[in-house]
């Protein structure tokens, strides 16, 4: 009998948490640096019960969702536009890839100055982070379109609009979804960074303020919450990716 993969993954996770608990309880490492897993859980339950987590998590989720939507709309739009003509693609794609390579964190202080400490600066920052992978993957997706399919479609009388909707868009979809996934992950990183650096609320803010008072158990717990958010989002993308490329595999 084959052991289901998820069972193995859960076993791995439990082993990791168990080791953590054991190593931390021997106290080879100071509890300030490495609190026990159980302490972390107790600490985070307190944060949940007091409503503190709820308040900050909501801010982060609002920022994440807004950034992701903005990045997706502009990234996909720009991607298809740039990919549509050779001239645009050849001039703009290298620039886009270059910008993507720059650590965008360097502009955050400026954004914080311009847009303040509220959610706006985080949304903008997250959107910029998310925009690049979405745009570049959209372009790559369009490029992966088989030219012969377009010729076939044209021979059957398809207009350019029809060629786009029936050939180019579906061809680009799997790559585009990969881009959306990276975009979401990067937007999250950007937002947490922004919150830690200069803000009045959010998961990153909470982590930062807890670490300043050396409340390690709380910091670890909050990092865990952050991981959970991004894992759930990625699981959703997994499903989407499987759905959108069902045609590649078996029945």
């Amino acid at each position, binding site marked *: 009998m084959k052991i289901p993969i998820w069972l193995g993954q859960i076993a791995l996770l439990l082993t990791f948490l168990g080791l953590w608990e054991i190593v931390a309880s021997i106290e080879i490492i100071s509890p300030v640096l490495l609190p026990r897993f159980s302490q972390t859980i107790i600490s985070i339950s307190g944060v949940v019960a007091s409503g503190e987590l709820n308040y900050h998590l909501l801010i982060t989720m609002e920022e994440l969702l807004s950034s992701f939507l903005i990045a997706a709309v502009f990234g996909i739009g720009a991607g298809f536009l740039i990919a549509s003509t050779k001239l645009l693609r050849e001039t703009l794609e290298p620039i886009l890839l270059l910008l993507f390579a720059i650590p965008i964190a360097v502009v955050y202080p400026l954004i914080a100055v311009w847009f303040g400490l509220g959610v706006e600066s985080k949304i903008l920052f997250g959107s910029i982070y998310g925009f690049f992978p979405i745009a570049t993957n959209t372009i790559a997706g369009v490029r992966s379109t088989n030219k012969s399919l377009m010729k*076939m*479609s044209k*021979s*059957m*009388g398809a207009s350019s609009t029809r060629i786009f909707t029936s050939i180019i868009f*579906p061809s680009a979809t799997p790559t585009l979804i990969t881009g959306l996934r990276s975009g979401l992950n990067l937007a999250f990183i950007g937002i947490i960074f922004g919150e830690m650096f200069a803000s009045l609320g959010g998961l990153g803010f909470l982590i930062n303020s807890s670490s300043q008072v050396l409340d390690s158990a709380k910091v670890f717990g909050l990092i865990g919450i952050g991981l959970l958010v991004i894992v759930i989002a990625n699981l959703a993308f997994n499903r989407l990716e499987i759905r959108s490329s069902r*045609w*590649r595999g*078996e*029945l």
Partner: protein
Amino acid sequence: MRGRTLLTEPAIELRNLKKSYPVGNDGTIEVVRDVSLRVGARELVSLLGPSGCGKSTILAIVAGLTSPTGGEVRVNGDRVEGPRPTEITIVFQEPNLLPWRRADQNVRYGLELRGVDPKVMNGLVKKYLNLVGLQGFEKYYPSQLSGGMAQRVALARALALETSIVLLDEPFGALDENTRSILGDELLRIKSFTEKTMLFVTHSIEEALHLSDRVLILSARPARVKDDIRINLETPRTVELRWSPEFQEYKVRIWQSLKDELERDVPEPVANR
């Protein structure tokens, strides 16, 4: 011939067709040089020529997908300036199926583009999938079909449009000998009750002889029509016919004509000074 064309237009007519492609920054490659030919209504004409001589290029021009650099193409008397999906369909060298659509949805594709009523569409899809022997495989994705089955879906997709002219670019080229001859017979059967005009590209002499009313031999690139051979073999052509003396005579004749072209050195692409 000349007298008859006054009464009935040829279905396809190429007049002094020329085609060069640009290569690199300032070069060109001459692919088709002065090809003239006619295909009468309900005729099946094969184009036979060495690989790379310009057969696919000629078909793409007739289909209105590529414009010639000189000369003209007429279809049912009209000058071809773009695709004419109600008159011509083309079956390409590769199946070109949409990988995210199941077999039946692929056959639907051309009909959807045409805006056919969904009920009629379902009937046509079923009819042509059955015709190419794919009943039971409607729900398969292209990735789940064999090469021969994929090519059949492509054939069904083209035939479902029920155009009077069908261009076929080595549609069975990638298949084994047996599947190929079965599909060839299938094609003849379909042709016998649909009154279609077909221009068929192949590199198999036997296939050309088995299917065609006329065989045109093309020269090595740049393509010219070197020979125009009418095949007066009995119809329907049985497999046994292949061992008959007449068949062998045609075969030798075509082979001799083709051999020189297979051996000829083709010119390199030239730079425009």
